[in-house]
Each structure stands twice: as C-alpha cells, then as structure tokens.
C-alpha cells in the first residue's frame, strides 16, 4: 500500500495537509458544475425527450452555425491582418501590431450596446432614415441588428484579435529561408502565402479558432442583448422562469459540446505538429505592396474603425451626455465600488486557492495532482450561466447561509477565472528551480517554511499578475453576476444590462467606458503573451 502511494507520487509524496487543501479546493470548484450534470440526470426521460424534440435541435443549430461562422470570419480577418502587418510594408505597420489587439479590451456585450445605439431599430441611423425624405422613400430601415447577422458581426469584431495575435506571433517565428526558397523557385506572393505560410500557420489558426469558438459558445451578454437564442441565453431564460431542471438539461448538452471542442482541439494539435528548422535567419525583408499599399491600409483602417473607434466613440459621446444629466451620482459610485469590491474579493480568493494547487502540481507531479489541476481548470471553458446555475442549486439547498451573498458572486468568479492565476503562477514557479527548495530543506527549513519564505516571494509577482487578470475578468463578467447578485447589490455590468434594456443609454455609457478603461490594464500582458 505504501509502495503504491510512493509509486503514484514517483517517490515524492506531498505533505498530508497540502494534499487535502488542494484536493478540497479543486473539488469545491468542480462541485457546482458536476451537480448540474447530476441534476440533469434526474430531470426525467419525459423532460429530456421533450427538450430533445423541440428545443435542443433549434438551439444546436443556432449555437453551432453562429460558432462556425464567427470562427471562420475571425480566422480570415485575423490571418490576413497578421500577414499584412507582419510581412508587408502597409503604412503604420508598427502601430497596427498593437492597435489590432485593442478590440479585446471591449467586452462584446458593450460592443453590442454600441451597435444597438447606432444601428438598432430606434438607433441613430434608423432615426435619420425615418426623418430623411428620400431615404424613407426607399422603404423601411434596412439594418436589423437583432438578428443572426447582427450577432455574427459583433462577435466577429470583438474576437478576431485572438486569431490575429496568435497568427502574428507565429509569423514572426517562421524562418524566412522558406520564403526565400519559394521565391527563388518563382512562386508569386500569393502562392507563397498559400503554400508556405498557411501550412506553418495551421497550429496558430487552430489555437485561435479554439479560443474564438469557446468564446462564442460561452458568451451570454452580446448574444442576449442582441436577442439571439443560443444555449447560454436559453439556459438563462429557463432559469428566469425557474424551470431549473430544463436549464440543467440544456447545460449538460452545452457542457458536452464544449468538451467535444476541447477534444477536437487536442486531436488537431497532436496530429499536425509542424516542424521547422530553427536555423535560418529571420530577415527583415518585407513584401512591398506597391499600388495595393493604400487600399490594404484602408481595409485595416475600416476594421479598426468598426471594432474600436465607433464603439469607444459612442460610449464617450453618451458618457458626455450622461455627465451633463448627472449620471455620475452617488449610485454610480456605489455600483463602481460594488464592482471593485466583489472583483477584488474574487482576485484575493483566487490567488489563495491557486497557491497550493500550483505548488502541488509543480513539486509533486502525479496522477492525483494532475486530476486536481484538471478539476481546477474546469471553470475555464464553462459559461457563466452554468456556473451560476450550479451554485444556486448547491447553496440554496445545502449552504443556505451563503446563498444570496456577495461572497457567492465572488466564488463564481473564482471558479470561472482561477485558471488565469494558475497559468501565470505556474509560469513563474517553473522558473524557480526545485534545487532551491532542496537547499532550503537541507539548511533545516520545514516544508511550509520553504513554501512561505522561499517560494512565495519568488512567485509572488506571477501570482499577483494572475490576480490582476482575475480582477479585470470579474469586472467585465455579466451572466453569473446577474443571476447571483443579492438584493440591493448591483455592479457596473448589471447596470449596463438594465439601462440598455430600458433604452437609457446615457446611464449605461459611463459604466461601459469605465469597464473599457479597466480592461486596458492587461493589454500589455496579452501582447506579451502571444
């Protein structure tokens, strides 16, 4: 028995308490979600059949068609932008490198608000149309933002930078010698792109596609605001009418789809590793665009206008109106404070929970620690609505004291965003050699002293960076906050939701602008990461 235990841990078992803490944390993180799946099994065959018959096919079609079309669009935009910015002499190319990442700081639901304000049925453009003699002759206002196209447009605009960033970074790594060889063989520029770059870019495209498709499948805000129905919004509305069992059934199906995507990605990655020689110097030689230089520039400029200038401009304009109408009152400050408070709480808890898990994984690798690790990552690919549903179930029934408290909202954030601390913490712990632990141990330190005196100080910057990421993600979070907030507790995100549904844009805009400003913080980190 003891031998088996030692063999599992490869001769290096962790302290009992460390193991228990990590295990408890990981299990607690996964419980709400597992409970949802479990409850769906008790929903009864009849409910399953009814949902499988009429609800699920429609939702599957809506969700999958949207995911696929957004993913394709982001790949096309992201890869072409990356290539033009990295490999051609398009004007301002050094600026575009980071400007094209900026749409990531605008949460898609805020982008959706901006486009509802402009192109909605009572928006600026529609009013101009109805007021103008000759335009209204042409018939009804033609843009329909509350539609598949509207959702597709908004989600594409605010997620393509994922593909762009990943593709750019792999383009920078590709040895130029391949291109030189191809060119010497007489291939044209577009041929080189398709036959040399595209194959090399395949893993990057795969990684970007995974990020985007997970994003689309789990997004709630933009989809619900644009009144489209996918699994996440259907789960939300089912919970709204407190048909929680149907919501668990839909959640289980959605969970399955997410797992399928992750599995497909793993297969894709393992099957198609592209090898390239690291030799061969990367030259700065870039492709001259000639007469295409300015046309390409205007296309890039147009994308930037739609993805950054228009939404930010709209929010600044309406914030200005709001400012004059007194939108920045005591209540606004209360909402902002609530937002920072609950997000800060989530960041602190996430950092505390991440420490033992990271330590265990890196210093005591084994089947058990990798299970703990996997469990802690489970929130990553989960939509906020499912996390919230699970927490309502578990806490209302078994831990009523915590039900309807701010802490519960923070815990939901921890479940969803813990992986961000885990990632950055792990990265910095890998830089600390285990030899340092051993040195400290040989000098008489106890394991917990090693952890607090040697390891903690060295990985603290990484952990804090992860905490900051959690904070920012929590500030932006909408669905779990909407579903879990206790009476009287509102955050900036929930106010944007409420005010937009009432067409009171000048009240929504200052909150949106503040969220955008806070989201700029991790932009540098994102740029460095890819």
């Amino acid at each position, binding site marked *: 028995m003891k031998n088996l235990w030692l063999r599992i841990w490869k001769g290096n078992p962790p*302290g009992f308490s460390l193991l228990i803490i990590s295990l408890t944390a990981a299990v607690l993180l996964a419980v709400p979600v597992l409970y949802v799946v479990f409850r769906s099994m008790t929903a009864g065959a009849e409910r399953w059949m009814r949902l499988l018959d009429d609800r699920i096919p429609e939702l599957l079609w809506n969700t999958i068609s949207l995911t696929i079309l957004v993913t394709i669009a982001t790949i096309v935009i992201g890869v072409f932008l990356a290539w033009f910015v990295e490999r051609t002499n398009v004007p301002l190319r050094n600026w575009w490198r980071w400007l094209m990442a900026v749409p990531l700081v605008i949460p898609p639901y805020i982008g959706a608000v901006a486009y509802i304000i402009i192109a909605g049925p009572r928006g600026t453009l*529609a009013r101009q149309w109805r007021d103008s003699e000759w335009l209204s002759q042409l018939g009804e206002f033609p843009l329909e933002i509350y539609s598949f196209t509207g959702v597709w447009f908004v989600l594409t605009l605010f997620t393509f930078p994922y593909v762009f960033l990943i593709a750019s970074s792999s383009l920078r790594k590709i040895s130029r010698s391949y291109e030189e060889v191809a060119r010497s063989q007489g291939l044209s520029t577009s041929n080189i792109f398709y036959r040399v770059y595209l194959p090399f870019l395949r893993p990057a495209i795969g990684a970007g596609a995974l990020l985007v498709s997970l994003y689309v499948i789990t997004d709630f805000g933009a989809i619900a605001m644009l009144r489209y129905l996918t699994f996440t919004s259907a789960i939300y509305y089912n919970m709204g009418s407190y048909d929680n069992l149907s919501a668990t059934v839909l959640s289980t199906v959605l969970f399955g789809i997410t797992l399928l995507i992750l599995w497909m990605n793993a297969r894709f990655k393992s099957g198609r590793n592209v090898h390239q020689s690291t030799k061969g110097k990367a030259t700065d030689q870039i492709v001259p665009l000639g007469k295409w230089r300015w046309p390409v520039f205007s296309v890039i400029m147009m994308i930037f206008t739609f993805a950054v200038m228009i939404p930010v401009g709209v929010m600044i304009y309406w914030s200005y109106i709001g400012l004059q109408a007194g939108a920045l009152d005591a209540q606004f400050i209360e909402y902002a404070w609530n937002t920072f408070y609950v997000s800060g*709480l989530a960041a602190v*808890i996430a950092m505390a929970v991440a420490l033992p898990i990271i330590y265990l994984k890196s210093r005591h690798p084994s089947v058990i620690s990798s299970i703990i690790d996997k469990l802690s990552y489970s929130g990553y690919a989960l939509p906020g609505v499912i996390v919230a549903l699970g927490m309502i179930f578990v806490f209302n029934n078994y831990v009523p004291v915590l039900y309807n408290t701010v802490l519960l909202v*923070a815990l939901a954030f921890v479940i969803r965003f813990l992986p961000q601390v885990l990632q950055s913490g792990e990265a910095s712990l890998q830089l600390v050699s285990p030899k340092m632990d051993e040195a400290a141990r040989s000098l008489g330190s106890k394991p*917990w002293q090693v952890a607090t005196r040697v390891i903690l100080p060295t990985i603290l910057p990484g952990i804090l960076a992860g905490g900051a990421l959690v904070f920012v993600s929590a500030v932006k979070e909408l669905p779990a906050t909407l579903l879990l907030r206790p009476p009287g507790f509102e955050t900036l995100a929930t106010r944007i939701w409420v005010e937009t549904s009432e067409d009171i844009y000048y009240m929504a805009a200052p909150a949106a602008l503040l969220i955008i400003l806070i989201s700029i913080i991790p932009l540098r980190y994102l740029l460095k990461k890819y």
Partner: protein
Amino acid sequence: MLNRKWKYPVVFSSLLLVVAACGNDTEPEQNAEENGEEITTEAEDQELIVYSSRNENFTNNLLDKFEEDTGIEVLVSHLDETAVNLIKEEANNTQADIFISNEIGGLEHLRDEGLLQGYTPEGIETIDEDYRAEDNSWIGLSARTRVLMYNEDLIDESEVPTNIEALADEQYAEQFAITRGGNGSMIGHVAALRQEWGDEATLEWLNAIRDNAGIITSGHGDIRRAVGAGEVAFGLVNNYYYHQQIEEPVDNNVGVVYPDQADGEMGAVINAAGIGMISEAPNQESAEQFFEWIMIPENQQAFSYDSMEVPLNPEIEAYENAAPLDSYNIQDMPLRELGDMWEDTRELIEQSGLDLEIG
C-alpha cells in the same frame, strides 16, 4: 509534528476567513432582531428585502421615500414575474420580506401555496375587498387596463381594432406589437380571456396573434417605444404606458383605444399592481412596518404615481391624465380568480407556441 502539519492549513484557512469576513460586511443580515418595541432606536440596523416584478423606475422613488421616512434600509431585487417562481424556489430558505407585484394572479397563487402571510394594516378598508386577499396577505394598490396604443402618424384611430379578438385577424398582420407569453400582464390577460372564451378559443387566438404580431418584445416599455418611434402601427399594452409615452419629449404622437367597449362586448381587461407579505419573512418587523406605511394615503399615491396608474383607493387623486376606472367598461371578473388560473394559463400559453421568454 502537529505544528508542521497544521501550520499550512491554518494560514490558508485564516486567509479565507479574512476574505469571508470582508464579505460579510455587505451581506444582508438575515436575522434582524425581533424586538417589537424598539423600532425607532434600532431602525438604523433594520432592513427590508424586497423582490419586485415592476419596472424599477416605478418603484425607486417609493422605496427611497420609505427609507427616508422609517430609516429602514431597503435592499431590492429587481426581477420580473420570475419573482413568483424565485419565492417558491426559496420556500425553505426565505430571503425576501415583501413582494411588489405587477399583477394579482401571481400574488394570489403564492398565497394559495402558503407562501404569503396575512397581515391587516390600519386603513385597509380604503381598498375594496375585491382588490385584496381574504387574509390581506396581499393588497392591490393601483389599476391598469389592457389597451391598444397606436402611432397617430401611421394609422388613424378608426383603423385600430376595437376589440382584442380582432388581433387574430389577418388584416392586421405584422402591424402590431405584443409581449412574450411569460410577461405577467400578458398571463393575466390570457387568463381573463380563458374565463370569457374558454380554453380552445383562447388557444386558437394565441396561435393567431403569435403569427400576426410584427414584434414580440420582452416587456411593455419596448412596445411603447416601438409604437412611439413608428416601428409598428399599434401595440397591446397596459394603459399607463400610453400616458408615459405622451409625456416623452420625442416620439409622443400616440393615441389609445380602449377595446371591447360596445354593448355586449366583454369590456376592457383590468389587473392591478400590489404588495404581498412573504411567510417567514426574515425581517418580519420591517415587513409589517412597510404594510402600515404604504396604507398612508400619500404613500398609496406614490405607489401609482411614477407609473401613472390609477390608484385603487377612490379617495386618492390619480395622475392628471390617467383615465379613471369608471370612465370605461371593464370585464367583471374578481381579480383573485386569476390565482387559480395562473399556472394553467402559463401552460396554455406554452402550448400555443407563443414563447414564454424571448431571447
């Protein structure tokens, strides 16, 4: 040994405790003290937890006034009619003290399920018995009538249907807006129609209007804005939305038709907004104080004023343009009968395929 083993968990859990303690600061204190006498001295620590299914713009001033008058802090969850199901879901872990409802069916349904408690505040007799529960666990305070509001630029009053049944007529296809089936006022309306027409005819009508409606919105605010802006010619709303739209600085060229007014027709369908006291309210004392406070005439008026509804207490002056209840024919069905029909009606609507929720 013990020390080494436990230091880590102690540090870790104390960290969590600190965090949890911070969390407790803003947590609603659910076990407020139940000392009947010391209301005024303890008012600062008292809370009232309100679930409201009304638009928050209709209740904010009212609840602020309550805070000012009594010093009791109001924590409100702005929900929609889902509040009814939430209260049922939390039956074993009661959270709310007071439910402010947009319609009577849900209140009576909750009472029927044993989730409301009777309480008789002073001045209860100012509200007609038809508009409150037998045990006064809920009290209706303001009335609303189902009307057709139209855009005067797009359609003439004579072209607006004069009865609700006509919405199923093909000639109005794509011309009007209705709310989703799960909207509280819609459920109440459909329940009244079931009473009048029977289930089969109602189901047929629901099927027809689902196809006929140009826009199906989540709430009525969207309908009044859509009609005002000319997205559709007319819409089925509660009458106060018409008054609200007239007062808008733009898009205010709207008119109203009270349906089913001719001899032999059913009369316009009415409903009421009101308050209910939740069983086992965590802040019982605050809940009772709220009931007493709301019966004061000026507060009854405040309840209906922001929404521009008509107070059910005839002594209280209505918002200036709101049409009094006795100025048109109304369907004669006691509102509390809506309670029995509440769940069945939702089922009937679901059967018709008019979505309870829209996404």
